[in-house]
């Protein structure tokens, strides 16, 4: 047990050295030397959690029911378009109630033709080979299209992937450093921005769906009817915050945000007020030119997220594919809208359901007092161990320091994040490591008292104590794995440190000290003071 073959000896030392070296970039990161390290070294570093480094954490939840409704709406529009195609098939009574689309086919003999046109609109979804819509004919003339669960799941998944991408673009636009954006579960997105102190702008930006639409104003609407919230057929009432009174607009969209190529905050050349300048792509430009030509002299509404921003008159045909939105903006709000428009529309609405912002000062306070406490505590242990076990205490202390460095090193290797509960994990691990050495050393003492020789006392001490150390660590590992799998947030941060710490502390407290002890025993000491 105390006989280390050379390969084992070198392997142990190599592990110790590599583990300690991996911790170096982390330890230096707070000092002036940190930034001078080569980039590849700085990549293996322990990240500080937001509770220690300061910054903002935002948990967004998507309204996935939106996806269901949008799919219905889109499908209804597609069906209408398909049936209008020559030869035209007359349909009527189309509705999107109860989560499905249903309509009547006026001529019973055309039912099969309808079915043939609808079939290509559905596609396979998921792995089951199921289609994304079911088509059935009821009472010979009514066609009902029901979205399948598989289709819906696929659409939701796609919407979430797109939404995450849009969120990423918007956060990047704010110029914050090292943001983390992760999908969580089926309908959530986590945004973490280290150092960000006031998340208000970010929240507003992420809360904007940025669905831009240009629609014609319905000038025929009766003001009295409008005040009651009713609009003429084919129109809808929308709020118009800057004018105070709601406004009626035609339902059909002239042009939508999908046709935007770019959006920037600019200044109105005449008034100097902040505006948002947009450029359409070629298709959008052509369509805009046509519509403005046909409707010269009439007002149109610029609508963002179902709220009218402004409703200017079309004075002349607008060519060149550019337009501007004015409407009582400040520089910030114009800039925000521009970012939201050019980063694309969110496929689903996002709501902030959890938020936490920690100032760097508070984080730094936590680290500082944590470090002070850690240093004092470690010193206390080191002194106690030294006086209690002398030479063996020195070994235990070396192992303790190596253990701390190795935990940091392994965490750096996996780019793990250290949080406040993670520090608790550290305390527990250090405790367990010290306990292992106490167990071993007490056992050696005991064996010595029973009259064993130095060598055999040490050997038995390690052997007998290892059993208890093993059991204790396996139980803790089981607990740690449970916490990691089933826990959330801080509990996981704790579990990560614990799992790493269990491995490194067994290695340092048992294997590494045994190596040092074995080297000393080679000198054939006649007495062991312990």
């Amino acid at each position: 047990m105390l006989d280390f073959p050379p390969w084992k000896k070198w392997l142990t030392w190599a592990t110790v050295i590599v583990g300690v070296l991996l911790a170096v970039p982390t330890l230096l990161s707070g000092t002036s030397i940190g930034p001078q390290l080569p980039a590849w070294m700085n990549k293996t570093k322990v990240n500080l959690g937001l509770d220690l480094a300061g910054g903002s954490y935002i948990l967004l939840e998507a309204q996935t029911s939106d996806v269901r409704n949008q799919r219905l709406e889109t499908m209804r529009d597609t069906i209408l378009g398909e049936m209008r195609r020559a030869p035209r098939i007359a349909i009527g009574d189309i509705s999107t109630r109860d989560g499905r689309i249903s309509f009547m086919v006026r001529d019973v003999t055309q039912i099969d033709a309808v079915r043939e046109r609808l079939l290509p609109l559905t596609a396979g979804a998921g792995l089951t080979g199921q289609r994304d819509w079911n088509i059935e004919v009821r009472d010979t003339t009514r066609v009902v299209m029901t979205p399948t669960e598989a289709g819906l799941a696929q659409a939701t998944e796609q919407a979430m992937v797109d939404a995450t991408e849009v969120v990423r673009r918007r956060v990047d636009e704010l110029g914050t450093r090292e943001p983390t954006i992760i999908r969580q579960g089926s309908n959530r997105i986590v945004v973490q921005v280290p150092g960000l102190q006031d998340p208000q702008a970010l929240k507003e930006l992420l809360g904007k769906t940025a669905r831009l639409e240009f629609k014609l104003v319905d000038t025929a609407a009766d003001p009295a009817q409008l005040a009651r919230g009713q609009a003429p057929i084919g129109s809808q009432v929308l709020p118009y915050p800057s004018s105070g009174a709601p406004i009626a607009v035609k339902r059909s969209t002239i042009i939508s945000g999908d046709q935007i190529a770019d959006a920037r905050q600019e200044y109105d050349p005449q008034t100097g007020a902040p505006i948002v300048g947009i450029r359409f792509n070629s298709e959008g430009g052509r369509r805009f030119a046509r519509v403005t030509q046909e409707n010269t002299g009439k007002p149109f509404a610029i609508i963002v997220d179902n709220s009218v921003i402004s409703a200017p008159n079309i004075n002349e045909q607008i060519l060149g594919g550019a337009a501007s939105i004015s409407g009582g903006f400040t520089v910030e709000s114009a800039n925000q809208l521009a970012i939201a428009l050019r980063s694309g529309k969110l496929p689903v609405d996002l709501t902030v359901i959890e938020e936490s912002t920690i100032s760097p000062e508070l984080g730094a306070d936590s680290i500082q007092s944590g470090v002070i406490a850690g240093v004092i505590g470690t010193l206390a242990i080191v002194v106690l161990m030294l006086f209690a076990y002398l030479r063996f205490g020195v070994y235990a202390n070396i192992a303790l320091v190596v253990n701390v460095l190795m935990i940091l090193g392994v965490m750096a290797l996996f780019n793990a994040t250290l949080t406040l509960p993670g520090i608790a994990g550290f305390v527990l691990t250090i405790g367990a490591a010290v306990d292992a050495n106490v167990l071993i050393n007490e056992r050696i003492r005991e064996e010595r008292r029973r009259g064993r020789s130095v060598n055999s006392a040490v050997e038995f001490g390690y052997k007998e104590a290892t059993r208890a150390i093993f059991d204790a660590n396996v139980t803790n590992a089981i607990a740690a794995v449970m916490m990691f799998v089933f826990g959330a947030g801080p509990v996981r941060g704790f579990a990560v440190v614990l799992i790493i710490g269990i491995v490194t502390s067994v290695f340092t407290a048992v294997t590494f000290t045994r190596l040092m002890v074995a080297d000393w025993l080679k000198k054939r000491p006649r007495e062991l003071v312990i």
Partner: protein
Amino acid sequence: MRPLKLVPDNTNIDFMSFRKIAAVISTVMVIASLALLVTRGLNFGIDFVGGQLVRVTFSQDVEIEQLRARVDALGVGEPTIQQFGSARDIAIRLPVPENETPASASQAAQKLRDTIEQAYPGARVGSVEAVSGKVSGELFEKGALALGLAMIAIAIYIWFRFEWQFGVGALLALAQDMIVVLGFFAATQLEFDLNTIAALLTIIGYSLNDKIVIFDRVRENLRKFRRMGIVEILNLSINETLSRTVMTSLSITMPLLVLVFFGPDVIFGFSLAMALGIIVGTWSSMFVGNGILIQFNVSPENFDRKAVTANANAERVAPRER
């Protein structure tokens, strides 16, 4: 130089003669804790009940009543205002608004923050947290689930590795530790949040360590002294591991006490809970875990058929090298 010995060699304290009184003390502690939990309840942090928490450091002393009036005027709910650390460090907590929409927690927190920054120039907002009721429910479920499953899995492992009596002993001892620490949180009304769950898990970890060390020695002695009664075996085992218990408790309590007195205010409750947990854990290893072994009258026979396999397992951990 002679090594420092905190516990003299060959102690022979009759711990188990104290076990009836210890059982009474344990029962009283558990009942008192449960009563406290029922009557006062835990002061759940916003992680678990939702709401908003804003920590502010003011540039000068503030009138708490005036601050309360200002927050009240916002109409976002009844605030809880507490000092932490110095007199200028104030934590303001708001409950989840009644007609909660998913976003309202975050909006209310922003209102609160804006008001404070306007009314008290120079005040620094240390942290803002907002948790909606929906998320908080999930966080609580996950925390409780992790805690419960961890305890059960541990008991099963001990059952396999030792004997079922030891598993039951460990589980009951752990349950006592948890209940007493929870009772402490109910009594002091220290905030109970996700960080506290981490503290509880740490306590479980430490407390287990302690129990396994003693159980391991009990198992060893049961095999060694086949004719000794269980009470004598337990006494012997506790005495033999006593110096280890004292050394380890001391070396773990020291850094914890340092954390309590010099550590970040945010983890004050956390460190205090852990320090308490260690004391309770040591107590329960000695009297609860072992008490169960006496109740079940564990004897060497329990180990006879397992002796071979248990040894084989031990071999794997520490291979005998010539």
